[in-house]
């Protein structure tokens, strides 16, 4: 149709339309396919990021259209806020526990299942199943089943059978024992997923590589150290990145296991829970400070991400 009308058009405009359409309308088809996704991405991801950045420079209590520009005031406020700094410490402590532990455990499980022949599918399913369980549900089991501070909690029952008469107050004792619950719950929930990624990585290693190394007399730890780990580098980089981001997103289990248990501090509260309470959850609705907090978090993640990429790519040693 446009071709029939084309001779009447000035030639350069026709050329422009041609260029926009592409040969056989390819560009238009491309646009039609990607438009829904990118419209959504802009409205619900990119605009929010920018908005968060803008809000962070304004005093915005209970309002989304702030007028008072405060420069870096919100940042200064947060970076002097003992509770926010504490939540950053909690996050770093949590990440320091959970990232290496999940990495080692999921890789260990993958290597274990790699050698097992009978019932491999069964074991894989068992370790993978917690992927289907929510953090809320894990929090219920951990808080009321395992780490119940009363005598009838599973762990306390077990310890009593070993002769420890006094029940331990795991979550509410003011000690740091709640970390055991937090770390073990997350470990249970996510180890299976990363195990699958490692199994995929292991399957991509050519058998010949092992055979060649075995001919050279390598075995056991030396194979793991010099063949398996280097070959899993790409998987490792992806896994560690995902683990770090997930650790930063920690919210559900902290909120549900510890949220109603006692004062903060001493109880752990990662930045996301803290910002949620500042910006949306509590009474103050301070969106400017919330925005500044999310910007700080994002920059920390970017720094961690760049650092881990740099370290893993530089040494060649995972």
């Amino acid at each position: 149709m446009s071709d029939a009308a084309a001779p009447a058009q000035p030639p350069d405009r026709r050329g422009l339309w041609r260029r926009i359409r592409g040969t056989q309308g390819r560009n238009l088809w491309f646009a039609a396919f990607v438009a829904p996704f990118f419209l959504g991405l802009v409205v619900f991801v990119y605009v929010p990021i920018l908005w968060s950045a803008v809000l962070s420079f304004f005093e915005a209590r209970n309002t989304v259209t702030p007028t008072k520009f405060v420069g870096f005031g919100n940042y200064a406020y947060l970076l002097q806020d003992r509770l926010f700094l504490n939540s950053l410490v909690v996050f770093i402590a949590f990440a320091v526990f959970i990232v290496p532990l999940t990495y080692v455990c999921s890789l260990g499980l993958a290597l274990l299942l790699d050698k097992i022949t009978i019932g491999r599918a069964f074991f894989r399913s068992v370790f993978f199943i917690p992927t289907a369980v929510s953090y809320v549900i894990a929090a219920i089991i951990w808080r009321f089943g395992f780490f119940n501070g009363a005598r009838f909690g599973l762990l306390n029952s077990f310890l009593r059978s070993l002769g420890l008469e006094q029940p331990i107050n795991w979550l509410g004792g003011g000690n740091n024992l709640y970390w055991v619950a937090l770390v073990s719950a997350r470990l249970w929930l996510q180890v299976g997923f990363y195990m699958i990624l490692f199994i995929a990585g292991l399957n991509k290693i050519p058998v010949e590589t092992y055979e060649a190394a075995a001919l050279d007399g390598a075995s056991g730890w030396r194979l793991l150290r010099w063949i398996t780990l280097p070959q899993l580098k790409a998987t490792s980089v992806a896994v560690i990145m995902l683990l770090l981001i997930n650790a930063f997103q920690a919210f559900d289990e902290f909120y549900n296991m510890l949220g109603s248990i006692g004062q903060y501090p001493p109880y752990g509260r990662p930045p996301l829970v803290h910002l949620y309470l500042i910006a949306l959850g509590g009474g103050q609705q301070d969106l400017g400070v919330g925005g500044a907090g999310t910007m700080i978090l994002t920059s920390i993640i970017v720094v961690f991400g760049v650092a881990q990429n740099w370290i893993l790519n530089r040494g060649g040693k995972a």
Partner: protein
Amino acid sequence: MRTSRVAQGLRYVIAIALALFFLLPLYVIVRNAFSTNANITSAKWNWLPDQVNLTNLTSLLANDSIGIGRAMANSAIMAGLQTLGTVVVSLLAGYALARYDNRVSRALLALTIFTLMVPAATTFVPMFIITAQLGWIDTFRGLVIPGMFSAFATYLFRQFFLDFPTELEDASLIDGCNPWTSFWRIVVPNSRGIIAAVGTIILIGSWNAFLWPTLVGRDATRTVQVALSQFMTSQGVRYPELFMGTLVAVLPMLFVFLFLQRYLVQGLTTSGLR
């Protein structure tokens, strides 16, 4: 390679012990869901409930402060719509990003991958504001639509389509299809495996979501995770009902998972997270 029998036997012992540990939490749900309160809070640990009865289920269903029936229905609607929406949107975009190689396409791919790095924390406050401005608080639109644009799903689909042969599509184009009809008639039916895999990931994530439904799903659209969380932190929580609710909430996803696990594993291993 030499594998000693002792080492192999040891591997099985370790695997079985770990498997028991991994199943322990699921066992605790079932045990508590069918126990009486006295059963659960007895100082003596008993591995099995005294008698199996369904009173916990009936009292759970009758408990208005949890509203489990309504919450389950809400979760099903939200998770179903979100999965459908996300899969369609991401499938289209992932396909186009794999097939059309031009400057715009590469820029859009970079924009997509960038969002994988951005934590949800960065967007949740403004996303809530936008949703509120749209008047979508406590509606299914508010629960479903903002979460429908998954860079992860789009990226997995793109990786899959990079290895998907183009011959079938070319043939259908010569036969008179346009890219749209060719996509739905030829490409989609041949991508059922990856669609099932990504759909499972989205479905489980959506059903299990907590932070966003807490903010948006207030009363009429309270999901089951939010309902359980509120019940857990309420005064005088009743253990048997809470665990029966947990069992009810976890069962649908366990079934989905057991049926679709094969696709999930295939999807994660073939499309390769890089």
